[in-house]
C-alpha cells in the first residue's frame, strides 16, 4: 500500500472539488459540524463517513438500494460460514466477536469512492474527489491484499503474477462488475453463492473441445474448473485466534503456507458443475474464538476447511498442465487425507480425493 500522509487524508483539493457536482451540497450537509466557530468547536458532531441513506440515496437510489444487501456491505459471507460451524445459542458471542474483529472490513459508498476503507484507517483518496471507479491499489487490494493482491501481482516469491495483470494490466473492475460489487446480482449468502461471477467462459468463448489445445478434451472441460489447470501455487491460512487487550482487538494468524491442491467440488451444482476444483485452506481452527467463550464452534465439521477457491494467479502454462502425469496418478496435487490436520478430517470428508485419477 502506498503511504498516505496525515495531511493528505483530510486535504480537499480547492480547485477541483468546488467544480464538481458533489460540492453543491456543501460540507455541513453531509458531514455535520458548525460554521463560524473555532476549529475545535467546528468539528463537534462531525461525521467522518456520511450515512449513505441520507447522503447518497437521493441521487444514487438504485445503487444504494442494492448495495445494502451486498457482501461488501453485510459481510454475510463471514456470518454464513461462522453460523454454520456454530449453534444458535452461541450466536451472540459470535456476533460480538465479529463486531470487534471482522466488521471493520465492511465497506460503504464513501470507503471506496471517496476515501480509503476504514480497514486501512481511511483518508481521502484524492482531495475529496468522488471516484466513479475506485483506484484499485488504494481500495480493492487494500482489503483484498494478502491473498488476492499478492497472487494477482506476483508478490509471492517465485510465483508469477496473474496473466491478466502481467500481460493485460487488467484492473479488478474489468472482471468484477459494478453490479457484483454493489450487490445488484441478487442477495448472496457467500462469495460463491450462485453462478460464477466472473465466469472465465464469458471472455474465453473459444475454449471448447477441438480448439487446438490438446488438454481441452470434452472430459477435462466437463470435470475440471478452469483453475485446476490454470491456477498455480497460492496462499493458505490455518487459523486466526482473536482476543483483546485494553479494549483493543488483535489477531494471531498462524503462519501461511504456499500450496496448490485439487479437491472435490464442495459446491457442485448446475452452475458450478465441475467434479474437481482448486481448494484453499481458510483461517479457521476450533479454538479461534475462545476468548469470547468455550466451544463456540460446536459444528466445526459442518463445512470443509479446505474451501472452493479461485486463486488470482492464472497462467496459460502451469506446472500441472505441462504433462499428463503431473496430475494423473500424482497424489501430490490432490487434497488427500494426509494433508489434513487431526481435527479437520471429518470436516473435509466431502472434498478429499480418495481415488487419484489414473488414465
Amino acid at each position, binding site marked *: 500500500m502506498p503511504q498516505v*500522509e*496525515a*495531511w493528505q*487524508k*483530510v*486535504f*480537499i*483539493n*480547492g480547485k477541483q472539488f*468546488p467544480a464538481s457536482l458533489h460540492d*453543491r*451540497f*456543501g*460540507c*455541513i*450537509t453531509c458531514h455535520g*459540524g458548525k*460554521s*463560524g*466557530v473555532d*476549529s475545535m468547536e*467546528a468539528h463537534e458532531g462531525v461525521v467522518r463517513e456520511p450515512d449513505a441513506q441520507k447522503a447518497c440515496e*437521493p*441521487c444514487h*437510489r*438504485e445503487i444504494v*438500494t442494492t448495495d445494502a444487501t451486498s457482501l461488501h456491505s453485510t459481510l454475510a459471507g463471514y456470518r454464513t460460514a461462522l453460523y454454520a460451524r456454530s449453534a444458535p445459542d452461541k450466536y451472540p458471542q459470535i456476533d460480538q466477536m465479529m463486531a470487534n474483529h471482522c466488521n471493520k472490513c465492511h465497506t460503504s459508498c464513501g470507503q471506496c469512492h471517496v476515501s480509503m476503507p476504514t480497514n486501512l484507517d481511511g483518508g481521502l483518496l484524492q482531495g475529496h474527489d468522488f471516484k466513479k471507479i475506485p483506484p484499485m491499489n488504494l481500495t480493492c487490494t487494500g482489503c483484498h*491484499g*494478502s491473498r488476492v493482491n499478492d497472487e494477482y501481482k506476483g508478490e509471492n516469491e517465485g510465483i508469477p503474477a496473474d496473466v491478466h495483470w502481467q500481460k493485460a494490466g487488467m484492473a479488478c473492475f474489468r472482471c468484477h462488475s459494478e453490479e457484483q460489487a454493489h450487490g*445488484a446480482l441478487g442477495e448472496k449468502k457467500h462469495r460463491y453463492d450462485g453462478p460464477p461471477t466472473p465466469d472465465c467462459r464469458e471472455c474465453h468463448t473459444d475454449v471448447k473441445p477441438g480448439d487446438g489445445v490438446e488438454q481441452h478434451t470434452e472430459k477435462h472441460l466437463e470435470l475440471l474448473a478452469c483453475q485446476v489447470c490454470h491456477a498455480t501455487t497460492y*496462499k493458505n*491460512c490455518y487459523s*486466526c485466534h482473536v*482476543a483483546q*487487550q*485494553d479494549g*483493543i482487538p*488483535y*489477531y*494471531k*494468524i*498462524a*503462519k*501461511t503456507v504456499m500450496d496448490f491442491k485439487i479437491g472435490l467440488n464442495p459446491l457442485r451444482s448446475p452452475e458450478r458443475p465441475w467434479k474437481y476444483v482448486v481448494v484453499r485452506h481458510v483461517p479457521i481452527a476450533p479454538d479461534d474464538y475462545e476468548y469470547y467463550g468455550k466451544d463456540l464452534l460446536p459444528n466445526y465439521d459442518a463445512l470443509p476447511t479446505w474451501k472452493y477457491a479461485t486463486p488470482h494467479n492464472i497462467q496459460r502454462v502451469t506446472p500441472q498442465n505441462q504433462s499428463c502425469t503431473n496430475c494423473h496418478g500424482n497424489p501430490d496435487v490432490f487434497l488427500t487425507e494426509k494433508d489434513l490436520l487431526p481435527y479437520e478430517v471429518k470436516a473435509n470428508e466431502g472434498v478429499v480425493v480418495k481415488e487419484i485419477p489414473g488414465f
Partner: protein
Amino acid sequence: MSEFLRKHVRWVGPVVLMLIGLLVMVAAAGCGPAPTPITPVPPTPTQYAPPAVQPTPTTPPKPTPVPLSFPLPAPAKTGDGFVKADDSNCRTCHTDEAKLRELAKEPEKGPSLSEGEG
C-alpha cells in the same frame, strides 16, 4: 210483415247462423287442454351494493409495496429549497495544504499485538 222486414229478412238467417257458430267455437276453445306452464326466468344476480355512506378511515391506508424495477426514475430532489449552510471555514482550513501539513497528525497507536498476515 212490415216493408223493412220483408226487405232484410233474407240477411237475418245467415247472420244468426254465424253468431251461433262463433259461440260454439268459443265454447270449444274453453274446454281444450291446459296451457304449458311458463317457468319464470331467475333474476340476474346483482352485485353487492355497499352502503351509501362508508365510515371515514381513521388512519391513512398503507401504500402498496411496489417491487423495485430498475432503472428507477430520476431522483426528484433537485435542490429546490435546499439551504446550503455556510461552510467557508471548513474550506479555508481543509484546502490549505501548508496548514494541514502543520496541524494534521496521525493518532498515536500503541504497539499492536496482532501477528501474521491478515
